């Protein structure tokens, strides 16, 4: 087991310099469909400079209760998105995961599901967490299917929490417990 803790079948996780992520974030954020699938905040078009400042501030912070990785493809080493965990290092052994693939041409090809599986293995085998949760919007069926493939189970919905394009949408909570992940046997190193 070498780098395998952060490698899947299609992707690997990497740590990137602020200016690299900033350039990508700034570009990806201009795709408002992507942004609205990911985030409830209204899109703001921030410059590469602003993104770099913001990410460099994170560098200064040192330790925090969040972890982020860049997602790169194994075959071309292309930087296609990012994935992160929130609310870590607390006594409950629970976390929230968020993933986004900014490069459209990699949507619907299994890259997201592969990345999620790698993240679950890291969460359960390195961070020793008891459960991993996530929030997905009910206008994102592609993501929901991907999460189900990775083993997540729906846990409830916050009804009508999003108002976009003139109608109401729900937040969907999903989660996977350690025992379920072990039983699934998907990528248990």
């Amino acid at each position, binding site marked *: 087991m070498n780098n395998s803790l952060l490698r899947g079948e299609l992707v690997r996780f990497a*740590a990137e310099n602020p200016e690299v992520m900033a350039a990508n974030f700034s570009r990806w954020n201009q795709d408002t469909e992507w942004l609205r699938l990911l985030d409830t905040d209204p899109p703001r078009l921030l410059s590469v400079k602003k993104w770099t400042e913001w990410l460099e501030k994170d560098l200064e912070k040192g330790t925090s209760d969040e972890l982020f990785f860049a997602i790169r493809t194994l075959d071309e080493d292309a930087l296609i998105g990012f994935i992160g965990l929130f609310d870590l290092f607390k006594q409950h052994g629970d976390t929230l995961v968020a993933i986004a693939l900014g490069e459209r041409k990699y949507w619907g090809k299994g890259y997201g599901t592969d990345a999620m599986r790698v993240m679950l293995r890291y969460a359960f085998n390195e961070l020793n967490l008891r459960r991993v949760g996530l929030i997905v919007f009910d206008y994102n069926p592609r993501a929901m299917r991907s999460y189900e493939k990775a083993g997540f189970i729906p846990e409830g919905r916050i009804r009508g929490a999003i108002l976009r394009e003139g109608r109401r949408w729900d937040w969907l909570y999903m989660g996977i417990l350690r025992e379920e992940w072990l039983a699934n046997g998907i990528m248990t190193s």
Partner: protein
Amino acid sequence: MGIETQLFEGKLVRLAPIDHEKDPEVESRWTHDLTLLRALYRQPAMPQSIAQIKKKYEAIEKEVDESKKLFHFMIRDKQDGRLLGFVRIEGIEWSHGTSKLKLAIGDPADRGKGYGGEALQLMLRFAFSELNLYRVAAVVVEDNPEALKFFQRCGFVEEVRRRKAILRDGQAWDSIHLGILRDEWMAIHGKGDSSHE
């Protein structure tokens, strides 16, 4: 062995300062090997970007300069100056003469060639003959038998077993503390030259 003996030169390696320009890229690459990180640190294994390594290097030199409780050296190939790893003595308690040591050879392909062993001996000689320390400790996790053997071969003695202290891959492992005292090291290496296993 007198004042003229070179503290930082071995036959295979040299102990050297940080190269802020060239080293971050190499070390960033090593940190994507989580087995190495797990061998060195208790914190969750997390790869570091080049920028993060650069910041870490600045923090290291600041701490070396200000705390006076840390010595951090890069291990370089004596032939071509290539970065092989690092070795450090940290947590020095001067009034007691105690300290902790960490050593890493970053690329698995460079291990088992004697680089680590020589760097360890250079560092121990530095600790005992220049810093005048009484003891040097090292911490190894039970799931890393190579590291345990490495230190034991060099004369470290197992002193503490913190049972099931480390949880990884769903299994609990002991954290093993080893120690070597100045008298023990002197007995093995005498006051002769620096040739070692």
